[in-house]
């Protein structure tokens, strides 16, 4: 199988790592903690509707950090990214079309 051959070639190129990537993980942890502080702090500031926007934007950024640095979603194969995206896309279908009903009730 050609996929197997190329996989073998690719893994041969990867240099075996001998130590833990402590530094990069520490950076991600700091970023996550900073974002947590930011979201918790900002929600005590009255911003009106923007509180919701800020909170969920920060949540999305945190989730993206976990996905990229811990789950290596960008490093993997295309099929993995499609699988991950499909879940979100289909959830989007559920929300979008249901809310066409919910938001327009009584009109």
């Amino acid at each position, binding site marked *: *199988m050609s996929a197997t051959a190329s996989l073998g070639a690719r893994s041969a190129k990867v240099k075996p790592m001998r130590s833990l990537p402590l530094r990069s993980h520490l950076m991600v942890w700091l970023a996550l903690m900073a974002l947590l502080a930011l979201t918790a702090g900002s929600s005590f500031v009255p911003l009106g509707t923007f509180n919701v926007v800020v909170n969920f934007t920060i949540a999305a950024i945190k989730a993206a950090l976990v996905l990229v640095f811990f789950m290596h979603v960008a490093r993997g194969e295309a099929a993995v990214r499609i699988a991950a995206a499909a879940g979100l896309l289909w959830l989007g279908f*559920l929300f979008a079309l249901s809310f066409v*009903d*919910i938001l327009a009730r009584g*009109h």
Partner: protein
Amino acid sequence: MTPPAALLPAPAHAASYLEGDMSIRAWLTTRDHKRIAIMFAIAITAFFFIGGAAATLIRIELATPAGDLVSAETYNKLFTMHGVVMVWFFLIPSIPATLGNFLVPLMIGAKDLAFPRLNLTSFYLYVGGALFTLAALFAGGVDTGWTFYTPFSTMFSNTNVIAAIAGVFIVGFSSILTGLNFIVTVHKLRAPGMTFFRLPLFVWAIYATSVILVLATPVLGMTLALLGIERIWHIGIFDPSLGGDPLLFQHLFWFYSHPAVYIMVLPAMGIASEIIPCFARSPVFGYRTMAYAIIAIAVIGFLVWGHHMFVSGQSVYAGLVFSILSYLVAIPSAIKVFNWTATLYKGSISFDAPMIYALGFVGLFMLGGMSGLFLAALALDVQLTDTYFVVAHFHYIMVGGSVTAYLAGIHFWWPKITGRMYPARWAQFAAVLIFLGFNFTFFPQYLLGIEGMPRRYHEYAPQFTTLNVLSSAGAVILAMGYLLPLVYLGWSLVRGARAPQNPWRATGLEWTVPSPPPTENFATQPHVDEEPYAYPPVAASRQEAAT
């Protein structure tokens, strides 16, 4: 797609999956996809006849306008049982878990599915969940209908709702694991040279079905969980007296249950796409279009659930959006019907039993699809929804479509699966009988719906009598039609002639291994260097010589 000539006479000593350890214990702990497929087939056949028995009682009751055979409570429990058993314990697993399980690894040149142990887990989840629900259905019964609409199911039904949905919840995990297994298998275990656009359309169909299983089933699972919690607690999001919204349940339920229709019918389309080219000796018309159509159905099929809710009180705008999307999903289905028909052109057609079943499927699916166009039309749906028109429509798709195609597939691959031939004439006769019996049973129901007879009625106004009697009479023929294969296929297991490796001269990797296939499927790794459906150009056949 043919392997090197040296391989063709397969080594006679390779033990088939039906040889070796045949003890019950070996079967119940097997990880061989072929044996698991057989166990699934036995289980779903049992559930088919349980669901069928409920259907028979329903039709007998409806032979007269008065509710005289069973009480209203019993009738409601019967159609609930019929729906729950047929949808979740027969139709959803039918083709994927049996033929799909057996054939997908063979068709793509793999030894097994990606996760054999998970496959077995899936079987036990299915059996466990189904028996659980069945126990609830028999011990007291459930009267909510298979749709479990709130707030009836949460507040007003006094029956075993919790137990029933718990079983369905468990069976849902079986669906998810089966779908997951197929997706990974198709992505990762294809033989060298078996590119995506060389996959048999049956594999495409099973792949698309798996995508739906994986994306839709969790929504059903959580929705049923919320329903159950709400029924126990009496607080939740569906109950209007507590500020909830019963339409949320309908949205979530149909987000699963509409795509579930495609779980049932896509594999059926896959089977037709295998059989028609084979018996027409003609490559399938527009292979790529057919593959794209499968994917289009799987995706757009998720965007149309609201057409079940045109009179539910959902907003008019939502109705408009769901209606236009419903028309869009009809396009790829129409393409498939046209392409199957075009496949016959310049073919060399023989009418063996699988072909008659497959052509019957195309006809019945087309009639069902056409009635779907009425139901997608907003104004027409207002009149027709919740009447027998809908009942006829989805039985044309699910019974006329899926069950007929399932039987087509069983007859097509029976020699491969069992290593035995069945009596051809009997099979052809049964195929015709089922086609006629089916139309006799369900066509009158279209007319009943047009006349305005609501569904789920235990007794009805006298003006509906004639058509109901016709339908019940047709059901007798249909029931006989369904019992026949049980008899002659059973007979063939004992007395049938030994099947050759490729009785239909079909293309496809599954026909390059002995019948029945060896435990390891392939003696050596197959390599694929041919396009699918490379049926011999008719120029080479004997008819040409005769011209």
